């Protein structure tokens, strides 16, 4: 066990865990966050995605001791049900959800990419969503929601 200082959604938090623990378990169990989810633990689905230093990162494959003091943003760090982030609002507007378990992978991967590539083409966007999985098959609505956000030009 060892102590780590993490900055998650703007708050500094200290945890005492095995240094090899995947970040996902720390976020879920030590910090009781619900956004990032265990899907595969293998980097194949995206359900565990968080944003670290502006990039979408799969927290199931990221040992906690490799994160350092970097700013970590989870799905709950973007907005709240009362005041959703524009990309979250786009998913509400398009009703682009069924079970919702894939949300971290879809929303955070798209957001991180569009923040860095605001003028991305549809093909580039689709490429950026490589190995992001939604088993409920909401793909069509999700792409609509992401495009709606992209064309708003609103980046928070």
């Amino acid at each position, binding site marked *: *066990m060892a102590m780590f200082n993490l900055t998650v959604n703007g708050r500094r938090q200290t945890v005492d*865990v*095995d240094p*090899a*623990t*995947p970040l996902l*378990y720390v976020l*879920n*169990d030590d910090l009781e*966050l*619900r*956004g990032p*989810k*265990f*899907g*595969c*633990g*293998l980097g*194949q*689905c995206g*359900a565990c995605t968080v944003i670290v230093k502006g990039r979408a990162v799969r927290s199931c494959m990221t040992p906690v001791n490799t994160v350092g003091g970097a700013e970590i943003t*989870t*799905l*709950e760090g*973007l*907005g*709240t*049900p009362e005041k*959703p*982030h524009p990309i*979250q609002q786009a*998913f*509400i507007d398009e*009703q682009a*959800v*069924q*079970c*919702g*378990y*894939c*949300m*971290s992978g879809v*929303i955070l991967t798209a957001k991180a990419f569009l923040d860095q590539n605001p003028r991305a083409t549809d093909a580039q966007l*689709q*490429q950026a*969503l*490589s*190995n*992001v*999985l*939604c*088993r*409920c*098959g*909401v*793909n*069509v*609505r*999700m*792409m609509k929601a992401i495009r709606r956000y992209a064309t708003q030009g609103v980046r928070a």
Partner: protein
Amino acid sequence: MTRLTPEAALSRREFIARSGALIVTFGAAAAAGRLGLAPGTAAAQGINGNPATQLDAWIAIGADGRVTAYTGKCELGQGLFTAQTQLVAEELGVPIDRVTLIMCDTDRTPDQGTTSGAQSHPANFNQANLALAGATAREALVQMASTRLGVPAEQLVARDGAVQVTGDATRRVSYGELVGGRTFNLPLSRQARRKHPSTWTVLGTPVQRLDIPAMVTGRYEYAQDVRVPGMRHGRVVRPPSPGATLASVDEASVRDLPGNVRVVTRKNWVGVVADKPFQAIQAAQRLKVQWNPAPALPAQASWYDYMRSRPTRETFTTNSGDVDANLKSAARIMRSTYLYPYQMHGSLGTSAAVADVRQDRATIWSSSQAVWPLRNTVATVLGMKPDQVRIQFRLGPGCYGVNQADSVSYDAAILSQADGRPVRVQLSRQDEMAWENYGLAFVIDQQVGLDAGNTIVAWDYIGWSPAKGGRPGGNNPGNVVSGNVAGYQIQGFAPRSPAPAPSGDFDNGNNVASSYVTGCVGSMCGGTGVVKSERFLSKVIESPFFTGPLRSPNRLQNTFAHESFLDEIAASVKADPVEYRLRHLRDPRLREVVTAAAKAANWDTRPSPRPGGRRNGVATGRGIACVLYEGDNGYCATVAEVTVDQDTGVVQVRRFVSALDCGPISNPDGVRNQMEGGLIQGISRTVREEVRWDATRVQSVDWRSYPPFYLHDQLPVIESVLINRADVPATGAGETTVTVAAAAIGNAIFDATGVRLRQVPFTPERIKEALGTRNSTA
């Protein structure tokens, strides 16, 4: 006048306990049969449970006028939470934000058995259960107001949480004043009049889902998120192959690990529990376990022949007795065989549950779709009585049938009982995939006789499918892996051949019979078609793997075979696929969805394949398929347009046009979302998904060895046509489009290339092989 009694805190539970004591329900046998289970579990499965008949079990009105409704049909990601809230708001005449819906808690809500098989709308949106409760409550409130205001009930209207005199909004009395905080103490009234769909203002409108804001902002509590004080973390160690038994466990192998590791065994069940999840994972990996090997699995290369060679349990859906004679005298006979693989539910998240097992009481948080059967079976596992166990449903990742939500609930219960503390278990991806209850593989032999005018005169079907376990039912947890390895028997398999003559009503719950036959049993005909000479024989064999209902169980596989075969027949007689379908369909609603889908797709009327197609490069084609889901539960037709790259064998669906008639529509946007999801799943299952195994174990254990349709994959355009009918009962909608997708895609590939694919999935290798055969025989 209604007499009100003061609310007693326990009254709801007490009478639910009483009314829920009898589990056997009428119609349960048919329901279990539809789930592909051997008879015997039928009564205990009770798909719709034994819901309460007292109004107070369903609806309560607080002193502040807020409405609380209780339902036993659960949100599974299909939007049912919102649709049921709309229903209650509509029937009671209150704004939607004044309704609180409590879902699927065995201590609080009516026993509605299992949420599955697109049965939730039929159960709760017709003249019964939740809808009837809403109507009963509204009529009771109007009666009370009539007495209070001294105005005849006919001159009153229930609106906006109050009863008022029609045309005089100043003379009103609110629900809170009428019953607030007390019970109705009334039975559900069979005579209660539901609001007519033409007057709906909340139901039938595209209300946004109430749960989505919490989901997109990471606030929603899934089963995977449940945390209780003092909770520890468990992990299971499953056998290395189906049938392997436990030889020994070396507890010393994990003694030096951190986290207060405890090892628990029970028969062939092995698990560990530790303070933190990562500690439990490491302990499970480190634990030295010896297993006695199991006999080899049947070779996958000859799997479909193996299926034909096994002892069978046989059932006729219909048998007119004259099929052999009519085939003999037919002008021409056509035959084809269709093959369908085992497929997975493959939920995006692995199953998880939390169990808090005390001396005389246990609580389980679970995403099982079968909340009441789970309560009974957890009680069996723990040696308790069902009323000592409380199941609190929490949504899990989309499940589409029976993933390991039930199984992991037993895992957590066993560990919590042994550890004396609450325990959370979430499975590994490998354990989820290797041991879930797969959707059924099928071998289907089809044969028809045609007359001189190319009309079908006889239809002959034999379908083989494997079964092992299923939804845990009755008091038997052995139908899923954890219960089985813990020592409970799998639902027995009893061969039966020949099949007895069909009796009772025509039951096409598995869509065993095609849409084109009359479906006669005795003098009653329940089919949708015109072909009178019909024989549909199902042969169930024992499966080497656990099986269970996977979205559109059996209905999908049978529909793939029927709708592909009909297309083959149409092509061989050079008929247009739509025209040839209509020639053999008599049901007006099924005919209408076929016509509507074709019209919306701008269907190009001509026989398949498309004339003048090229032999290389990219070919395009269109295909159609239709179904009356479960024989009586939703009409759907879908047109698929595809491109086939004849050099690489890659097929891409460019466009789907689906027409659906599911009676009065509760929420059109919700229905569209379900239709779209079913079609995308349909692509994934049709072109990619197949469970693979070797001699000892399942090899499909992650998303590389079981490749799915990803967000980076090429998407089709999807158009949905909804046929809204006010004056018929509500039917299912959620499983219709996935049922027809495979056939529509296969028929479109044939139209594009002239190649008929009779085995799912349509992988590039299979398509190239078929194209190679076409080119060499041309």
